[in-house]
């Protein structure tokens, strides 16, 4: 998805990660983020990716990548295999988002998860005024062909974490690139942010 590809967004993630960390990027695409983090934070990165062309691009960058599916293959990693796992704009495309989140906090100490926020005011307005499923530059698929199976709002995500015994440690504002300690649900975040990004861990 095109939502997340700027250096600034990479930078927010980079700021949450200590140097030299062991990291798995789930749905790592062509490995750009891992490459960025390797250069900036000297991380030891691994990727999981479903698309063969993208895997080839990762390998050519010298990134270790496993062909696999977040819904199926995370189970193969032992507990605490990594310091951090990263799941950017992939949660909504998984078959079982709850299980995937639980796996992430099992295989790593902490997980960084980002997703498009369906509570964003423009999406609400679009549905209210047009009465059709929102299609924008960032969410460019029509409802009948979208690979995104499970859209949620920031509130939905927070509720799911509570239900799954997952602790939310930090929240990131991808608009102004701030990282704050998470305290409680914030109505404005849910209304004003196009996407959510959180640092989570197992309670």
């Amino acid at each position, binding site marked *: 998805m095109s939502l997340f590809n700027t250096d600034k967004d990479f930078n927010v993630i980079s700021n949450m990660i200590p140097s030299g960390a*062991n990291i798995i990027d789930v749905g790592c695409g062509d490995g750009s983020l891992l490459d960025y983090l390797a250069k900036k934070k000297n991380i030891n990165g691994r990727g999981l990716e479903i698309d*063969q062309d993208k*895997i*080839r*691009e*990762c*390998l*050519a*960058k*010298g*990134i*270790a*990548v*496993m*062909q*696999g599916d977040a819904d199926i293959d995370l189970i*193969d*990693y*032992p507990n605490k*295999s990594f310091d951090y796992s990263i799941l950017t704009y992939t949660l909504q495309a998984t078959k079982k988002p709850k299980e995937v989140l639980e796996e992430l906090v099992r295989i790593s100490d902490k997980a960084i998860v980002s997703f498009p926020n369906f509570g964003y005011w423009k999406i609400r307005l679009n549905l209210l005024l047009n009465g059709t499923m929102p299609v924008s530059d960032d969410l460019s698929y029509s409802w009948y062909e979208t690979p995104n199976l499970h859209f949620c709002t920031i509130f939905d995500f927070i509720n799911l974490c509570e239900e799954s015994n997952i602790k939310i440690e930090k929240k990131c504002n991808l608009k102004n690139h701030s990282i704050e300690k998470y305290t409680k649900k914030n109505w404005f975040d849910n209304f004003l942010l196009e996407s959510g990004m959180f640092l989570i861990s197992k309670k």
Partner: protein
Amino acid sequence: MSKNTIVELASSKNPLVLDCGKSIGPIKTAYTTYGKLNDSKSNAILICHALTGDQYVASEHPITKKDGWWSLLIGPGKSIDTDKYFIICPNVIGGCMGSTGPNEKNPKTGREYGLDFPVITIADMVKAQKLLIDSLGIKKLFSVIGGSMGGMLVLEWLSKFPSLVFSAIPIATTTSHSAQNIALNELARQAIMADPEWKSGNYNEHNTKPTKGLSVARMAAHISYLSEQSLHEKFGRNLQDKTKIEFSFDADFQVESYLRHQGFKFVDRFDANSYLYITRAMDYFDLKTDNNGSLLEAFKDTKAHILCASFTSDWLYPTSENKVITKTFNALGLNVSFVEIDTDNGHDSFLLNEPEFFHTVEGFLDATYKKL
């Protein structure tokens, strides 16, 4: 350019001690090389061949006159670039293309070994390869690459000589044969031994050759190298040079004719006893059992960069088997990549023109070479 070299390794005083307890020495190893070993001897890649492969990996085969079995992958400017890397491909011991095997003369009796040749294992083959690498003065292999049985050799290298391997590509392989794998090999062996011309393994002394048995063995094996889909697409129920079935046992169907051809041409280049010995070695291969029931134990000392590859339509060494390997490397926190190439070409895919596979190997090697 390549040349075939036969080197004598080990000796009667300092023999190769085999897993079965017997010793042989000296042994011969026939191998080819391509490209040039650099001054620091850091660009060497060992290529491990499969059951019926040999050292002619990227040069014309002296018997069949065909291109080397991996000449699509290996050569100047190709994915495994011989302008950059120094390629070594030895014929395994037990083989029949110049390395010590059952069709060699037993120095003790002056007669051909036949079934007196000791039963060898994948580990024995690797120990012999290690002697070759030592003799070439190479302290660390940049990469060890092989598919099918060649992949078993790669895994054995990672397990036995971890400090000698910087990177590895085990392809379409397994850490141990399944009952189905063993059953197929047993079918092949029984076909050879049931041929009256086999003469209890002493056919050369009798000036005969168990060609019928060996070709049936090859036919059975060949089926296992293809997928149902590829057989269907290649042949379907098409008839061979005829318009209707003939109510006979001639090759009415194209697929029959094809298999017979595969069998017949195989016997010209392969030795029946070698087939018995090498299939046995594959059946005995079991990294888990040999390491106190733990694959983690088998690979505990390796630090290699590893790329595992499997093929979607391979039912002989399916993706699930290859995933057992990657899962182990993952659990050890190794720098491992895994790719499953989407193809209808079955197990044979690793020998065929699969650009996706070639590019994957190329990208991995190039990037890994920079990490040296």
